[in-house]
């Protein structure tokens, strides 16, 4: 794809663009950050205004963000007939967090079947969040006849290609990738030449000390090739990230927590809010895993991420629904 979705966005969002993108935005939201042991509060408007708008900007400061994944709005099968309710539960859990996130990353499979009704329902459920939500699509969000048209109609404003973009927040550079479009027979997830070229130019102006958070749906390392749990051309993306001191890669898709560290890159796979899947190779096939009712809440969850400048990797806290 060569068309950008109007309005074209630069690789760095300024505050106005950030706000215009975010459906879940509420102008009066408060941001709490831990700085030097002191809890401070400021309006998100002020916080974003004060944030660095340029690559390599120096105004890094501690903040919290959040990852939710695989809400699968519309799923109603045996593994969790109440996926809508557990998505609402996730929103309630986030609202109850002692440190509210500046922003939320949704790492895809927002819906189960890419219908407008499901996208609308997901928006309504997540509109209960005060922080802006940044989305990438999962393959379940790209299975309409238009192969992603529905997703892009709902979330594609200001993004490029099949929905990729980047933005900066308090010294951290966030990159949203789509690795579920135009998949090839026999392969796994795929980033594609056009997106890789964009990624190269997006990262080109950044200093190596800029912390990078890259988020996409399917794992960017090969978790289990037989189940397609990996990305064919991830090595090309990772080569572009090699020079950076701190790279955090967040994904969903496999509905379970997995971590892997490879040099400067830390990979983290998150739980779903909808249903679990088997551990890699632990079943004949992937897919929704039916567990005893009492066990289900222990296998669903959300993830908080705490960034403190100059302290190494971003600290993650996974919280189940149990």
């Amino acid at each position, binding site marked *: 794809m060569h068309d950008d979705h109007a309005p074209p966005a630069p690789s760095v969002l300024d505050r106005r663009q950030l706000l215009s993108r975010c459906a879940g935005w509420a102008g009066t939201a408060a941001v709490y950050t831990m700085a030097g042991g002191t809890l401070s509060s400021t309006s998100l408007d002020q916080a974003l205004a004060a944030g660095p708008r340029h690559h390599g900007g120096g105004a890094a400061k501690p903040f919290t963000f959040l990852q939710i994944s695989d809400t699968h709005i519309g799923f109603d099968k*045996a*593994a969790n007939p109440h996926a809508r309710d557990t998505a609402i539960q996730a929103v309630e859990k986030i609202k109850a967090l002692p440190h509210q996130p500046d922003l939320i990353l949704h790492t895809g499979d927002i819906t189960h079947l890419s219908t407008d009704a499901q996208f609308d329902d997901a928006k309504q459920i997540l509109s209960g969040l005060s922080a802006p939500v940044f989305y990438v699509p999962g*393959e379940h969000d790209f299975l309409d006849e238009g192969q992603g048209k529905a997703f892009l109609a709902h979330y594609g404003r200001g993004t490029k290609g099949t929905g990729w973009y980047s933005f900066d927040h308090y010294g951290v550079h966030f990159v949203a990738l789509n690795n579920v479009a135009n998949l090839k027979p026999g*392969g*796994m997830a795929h980033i594609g030449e056009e997106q890789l070229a964009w990624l190269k130019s997006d990262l080109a102006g950044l200093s190596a000390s800029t912390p990078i958070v890259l988020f996409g749906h399917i794992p960017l390392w090969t978790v289990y090739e*037989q*189940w*397609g749990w990996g990305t064919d051309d991830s090595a090309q993306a990772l080569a572009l990230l090699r020079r950076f001191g701190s790279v955090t890669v967040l994904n969903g898709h496999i509905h379970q927590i997995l971590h892997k560290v490879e040099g400067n890159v830390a990979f983290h796979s998150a739980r779903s809010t909808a249903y679990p899947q088997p551990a890699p190779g632990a079943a004949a*096939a992937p*897919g929704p895993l039916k567990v005893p009712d009492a066990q289900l809440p222990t296998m669903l969850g959300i993830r908080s991420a705490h960034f403190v400048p100059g302290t190494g990797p971003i600290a993650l806290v996974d919280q189940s629904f149990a």
Partner: protein
Amino acid sequence: MFCFSASARRLAPLFLGLALPVLVGPSGALVAAQPAQAQTVAIKGFAFVAQSITVPVGTTVTWVNQDEDPHTVTATDKSFHSAAMDTGDKYSFTFTRAGEFAYFCSLHPHMTGKVIVKG
């Protein structure tokens, strides 16, 4: 078990129209039209079962998704493709020429299958 697809149902009156004159022909012989060939492929456990099938020209192949995850049937050369199929959904395609037709699930591309059509 073969289930008539929407396309098969649409074609049924056409077959009847062609067959009828033959049945009342002057020779008095009943000439039955060649029965339409049908074959089913299950989609289960993130695989096409059977992964490869061989059928005569004119066969209608029906795929049935038995998984709890949606899948597609997408020809590698894009000559045919289903919409996303949720649990229990079916998709049929009639192969009218000989050849090997590779296909895959465009959502889970490690799932591949093949239809070999013999003339």
